[in-house]
């Protein structure tokens, strides 16, 4: 039966049908749903790993043992996994190994725009790029076949628009695939003598793959009726088909390595061929390197952000589109905010009050602490970076600058731990604030080693962060309640002045998480007592707003009570009943 399926769910479906046995990931938008959807299939072992490097290593193990495996991540995660990636390219696989990487053109939820094809080329592994959900299913299967046929890991590259779009698919059945494990140290132990041999193999494999690309069915030509020609892959292909339905298009299902003869042949038929690709001029440069010169690429198409059919049209025809309705005034921006009742709010309210302190931030819901009304964050670079950066800043200032690193529980496990070890080892004077909401909040509530649950919701060993930090050698480890605003202000000030690496774990579960139950006692503002001083608005709580007077929207209020603590006039009260 035909049904609508999200691109990521289609990748999961493809894995199920392809007989995948092991699936691993660290959650990251836009890739998260792949693994979440796989977790619903009992036939597949599935886990959240602490980070992408570990996730890939687990998948490599499964593949070598002879079971098909997938490891999923977002583009920045591939940087973390780059180390094992470059070497698994040498060892190759036994059963198929697929690495699904979702790029995020337009940075809907990422700290940079990065093109996975560049890393894949550097690691010398083939890349497939689907353009809709049906292709997601199909390309997963083709990816595993290529992986096994050529003894190589295969990258399945997605972009946000493919990962997060639903289109029509037809589902198939599962096929069990099992390869036998054979010990082979020449292949799987990469010490110099063996690695040298394998490098020769890798180069030959790339040449073989190039040959293979010429006949691979997913590299195909749509014949057109108009004298305009394109080369594209993935979502860009869809945009072209919409903008120029009667154009010639060479659609590349495999974007690395490239079918050189096919491309040369195609380009020789036209005066000019447009290469349409979001992000880097990857196809363009590699096609130019073949000595093909009648192509037009980034000189008219942008290097940043997402494309659209009208953008492509506009760039080619050099004309503006008519927009019938326009608003000629700046509209109030609607930035994302911490949810009503969010425990992070209490901490950022306090941090915003500290003067002359640098706050290094990290990736998660709490990155929103950088925005108004808190303005309580100075940096945000990558997962786990807050701790190392705090240590760096402290030392650069000869320990004169006070620094607080904030990091989430999931992020701390991902790559904050090693930063703390470094800071302790090198005698730093920083405060690390672990904002422990007992989940991975931003990506939609995934579990991790300190939540005590697996991806399937089964109970697991619960890593205790406080004990861990003590073992790492932190001078003070304290647990604080983020909702106690007044108390925490004093506590944090004090902790900042204690020598050594101090850790404060602000623990309160994410308010949106279904696992935790909260006693809700909604607040209201007593208009007799309220002086309309607007102090409570500084919490940036979506439930509190102002018309003429300050009021609390009872539909939104979750009764966390933080506003009550900060009102100096006792005007915020608890509703009865």
């Amino acid at each position, binding site marked *: 039966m035909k049904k609508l399926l999200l691109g990521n769910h289609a990748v999961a479906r493809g894995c199920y049908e392809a007989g995948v046995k092991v699936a691993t990931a660290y959650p990251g938008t*836009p890739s998260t749903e792949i693994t979440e959807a796989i977790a619903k299939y009992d036939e597949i072992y599935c886990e959240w790993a602490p980070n992408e490097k570990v996730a890939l290593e687990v998948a490599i193990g499964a593949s070598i043992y002879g079971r098909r495996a997938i490891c999923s991540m977002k583009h920045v995660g591939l940087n973390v996994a780059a180390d094992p990636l470059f070497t698994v390219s040498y060892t190759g696989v036994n059963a198929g190994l697929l690495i699904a990487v979702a790029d995020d053109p337009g940075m809907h939820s990422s700290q940079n725009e990065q093109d996975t094809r560049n890393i894949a080329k550097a690691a010398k592994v083939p890349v497939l790029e689907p353009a809709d959900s049906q292709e997601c299913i199909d390309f997963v299967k083709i990816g595993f076949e290529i992986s096994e046929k050529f003894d190589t890991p295969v990258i399945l590259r997605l972009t946000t628009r493919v990962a*997060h779009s*639903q289109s029509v698919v037809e589902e198939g059945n599962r096929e069990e695939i099992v390869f036998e494990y054979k010990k082979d140290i020449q292949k799987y132990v990469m010490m110099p003598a063996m690695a040298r041999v394998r490098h020769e193999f890798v180069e030959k494999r790339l040449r073989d793959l190039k040959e293979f690309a010429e006949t691979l069915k997913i590299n195909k030509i749509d014949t057109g009726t108009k004298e305009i020609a394109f080369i594209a892959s993935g979502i860009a292909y869809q945009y072209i088909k919409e903008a120029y339905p009667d154009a010639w298009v060479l659609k590349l299902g495999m974007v690395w390595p490239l079918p050189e003869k096919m491309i040369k042949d195609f380009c020789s038929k036209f005066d000019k061929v447009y290469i349409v690709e979001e992000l880097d001029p990857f196809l363009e440069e590699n096609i130019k390197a073949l000595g093909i010169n009648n192509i037009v690429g980034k000189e008219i198409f942008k290097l940043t952000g997402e494309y659209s059919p009208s953008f492509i049209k506009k760039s080619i025809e050099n004309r503006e589109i008519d927009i019938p309705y326009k608003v000629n005034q700046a509209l*109030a921006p*609607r930035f994302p905010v911490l*949810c009503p009742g969010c425990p992070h709010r209490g901490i950022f309210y306090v941090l915003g009050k500290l003067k002359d302190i640098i706050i290094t931030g990290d990736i998660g819901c709490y990155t929103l602490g950088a925005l108004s009304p808190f303005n309580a964050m100075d940096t945000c670079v990558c997962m786990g970076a807050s701790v190392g950066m705090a240590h760096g800043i402290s030392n650069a200032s000869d320990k004169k600058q006070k620094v607080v690193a904030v990091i989430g529980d999931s992020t701390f496990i991902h790559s904050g731990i090693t930063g703390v070890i470094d800071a302790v080892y090198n005698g730093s004077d920083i405060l690390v604030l672990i904002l422990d909401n007992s989940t991975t909040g931003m990506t939609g509530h995934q579990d991790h080693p300190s939540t005590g649950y697996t991806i399937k919701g089964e109970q697991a060993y619960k890593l205790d962060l406080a004990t861990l930090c003590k073992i790492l050698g932190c001078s003070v480890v304290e647990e604080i309640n983020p909702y106690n605003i007044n108390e925490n202000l004093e506590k944090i000030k004090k902790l900042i002045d204690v020598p050594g690496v101090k850790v404060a774990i602000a623990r309160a579960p994410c308010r949106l998480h279904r696992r935790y139950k909260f006693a809700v006692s909604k607040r209201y503002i007593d208009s007799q007592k309220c002086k309309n001083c607007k102090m409570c608005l500084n919490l940036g709580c979506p439930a509190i707003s102002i018309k003429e007077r300050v009021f609390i929207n009872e539909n939104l209020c979750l009764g966390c009570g933080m506003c009550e603590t900060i009102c100096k006039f006792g005007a915020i009260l608890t509703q009865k009943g």
Partner: protein
Amino acid sequence: MKERLNILVVGVGGQGNILFSKILGDVLLRVGYDVKISEVHGMAQRGGSVVTYVKAAEKVFSPLVDIAQANFIIAFEKLEALRWIEYLKKDGLLIYPDYEIPPISVITGLYKYPDVEKILQEIGVKTCKVEIKNLLSSLGDSRVQNTLMLGYFSRFLSIDESLFKKSIENNVKKEFIEINLKAFELGRKIESV
């Protein structure tokens, strides 16, 4: 050939526009369209401005609805109706509710919440304003705003009501089916202004 539908569903993170699109997309698929839906995830969900695209035609390529291409914009919040108005095609229809969620930039006094009705009138957009505020409190659950709006919107498509209801049943968690069906029915009967 079936009429091409380009629909934008806009609102604030958490208002359920992904579910709206899913149910709608499902119905359109059942009546023989090719359908694509593009959704938003991540940061935008924390109360930010969000948009979902629903496209239906004989054959759909791009999952995006492009600027000036939407024949319908369905807004779940008034200010968001304005924010995405460039996406509306000439003579397209904007459907929006009597419902305001002030952004933090307004709450903290940096910006004013605009006079949406007035601006819409000035730029001459064809609109249907849906009074749902009271209905929502009568239902006692603001989370069904999306099915309420779906009920209203369903009248603009000549598709049997039962198909929508079936799709609601298939896409909503069991315990919420009843209230969503009720909201849908209420929405279908709303008089707009």
